[in-house]
């Protein structure tokens, strides 16, 4: 055999080896893909199956009724398996002729945080390290700002550095504190200021959401499609009331504490990265019940109702009480009102 022929033979052999390796890699890749798909599609594990389906589902507001039913059925199956009890996921839409509003009597609130714990229990928030809370109660000092003291202070006359109202309780101009832990409440010379989502008519959080996972429902409640949320936390930055919470890690919800009556847009268990907030207990109010915080308040400071109904509690409050809104100057038109008798 000539030298030239030998070279050609060697080249052919090398080409065949490369071809074989390519075929092998190709077949392995295809097999891996098909295998993974088959495993996930036919998995006995409800979570794996749901996760696979959830990856390809639409935004909830764009789903057809049929698709909504399927998504809800998938979640019910998954949660029931995960928590070992029958979990229902409600998909009730907004009721007709209803616009929800909330009023809170700031004079009556005693700062006991019963509403906070009722909310956590009802809405399946993450429990430990840390516990996510949708309601914050802030302790504020009572006090008064005296205009006649404005010209006092020191040094006297010209060049005043410290005003006459400094170093004494001047009411709401002093800072609040929400880590208060007294033995008993209410404490002397303080008042309490609970804050939660204001369900704004013009919600800045909705405006900034890049994927429209958060939106305002016809009954005025601002909701989040947790599956559609990409966890960018833009809404958290945009909310002037700091009412939104992020799941910085995997939420932990003990099986025995899980509330099995859930709503798709409300208190169903959330996932890592999803943002959450108060929904006026969607799962309750759309079925004719009060939010958990309203029911739990021991002093009856919280009122809730339909703003379109002139006979509702919240309308009566608006008509007869002294009312203010938090950060009204921002024109977010909150539907959460604070009132004084």
């Amino acid at each position, binding site marked *: 055999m000539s030298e030239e022929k030998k070279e050609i033979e060697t080249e052919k052999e090398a080409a065949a080896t490369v071809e074989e390796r390519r075929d092998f890699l190709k077949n392995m890749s295809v097999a891996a893909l098909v295998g993974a798909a088959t495993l996930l599609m036919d998995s006995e594990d409800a979570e794996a199956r749901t996760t696979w389906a959830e990856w390809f589902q639409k935004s909830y507001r764009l789903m057809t009724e049929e698709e909504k039913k399927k998504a809800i059925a998938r979640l019910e199956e998954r949660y029931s398996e995960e928590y070992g009890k029958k979990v229902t996921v409600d998909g009730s839409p907004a009721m007709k002729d209803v616009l929800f509003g909330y009023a809170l009597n700031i004079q009556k609130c005693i700062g006991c945080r019963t509403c906070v714990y009722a909310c956590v229990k009802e809405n399946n928030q993450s429990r430990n390290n*840390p516990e996510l809370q949708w309601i914050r109660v*802030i302790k504020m000092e009572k006090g008064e700002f005296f205009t006649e003291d404005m010209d006092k202070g020191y040094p006297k006359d010209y060049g005043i550095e410290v005003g006459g109202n400094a170093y004494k309780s001047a009411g709401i101009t002093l800072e*609040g504190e929400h880590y208060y832990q007294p033995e008993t409440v209410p404490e002397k010379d303080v008042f309490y200021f609970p804050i939660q989502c204001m369900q704004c008519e013009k919600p800045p959080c909705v405006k900034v959401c890049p994927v429209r996972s958060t939106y305002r429902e016809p009954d005025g409640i601002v909701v989040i499609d947790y599956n559609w949320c990409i966890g960018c936390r833009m809404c958290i930055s945009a909310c002037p009331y700091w009412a939104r919470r992020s799941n*910085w*890690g995997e939420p932990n919800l003990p099986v025995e504490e899980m509330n099995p009556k859930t709503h798709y847009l409300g208190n169903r268990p959330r996932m890592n990265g999803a943002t959450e907030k108060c929904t006026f207990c969607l799962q309750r109010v759309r079925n004719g019940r009060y939010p958990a915080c309203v029911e739990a308040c021991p002093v009856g400071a919280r009122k809730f109702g339909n*703003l379109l109904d002139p006979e509702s509690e919240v309308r009566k409050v608006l008509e007869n009480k002294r*009312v203010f809104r*938090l950060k009204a100057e921002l024109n977010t038109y909150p539907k959460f009102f604070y009132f004084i008798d």
Partner: protein
Amino acid sequence: MKDDKSLTRRTFIKTAVIGTVVATSSAGLSKVITSAAPKAMQPRMHTNDDIQQEKVMLGKEYVLMTKEEKKEMLQMLIRGYKEQA
């Protein structure tokens, strides 16, 4: 000629499959790495959220609504509801 065509098609499919596998796995890996904050950092991040709310309270302003303001606001809310319906 026919062999050349089928080789080109094969090469294309092969590249596409390998590309998909690489893209999917690297996306998955980067999601796992970036999506969750390290456990040790989580309490601090939650505390930061809380501090922000305190700051919000410091910038607050309470102005009692007049009767006219309340009436106007209510009308605005009702009108808004009717318009969307």
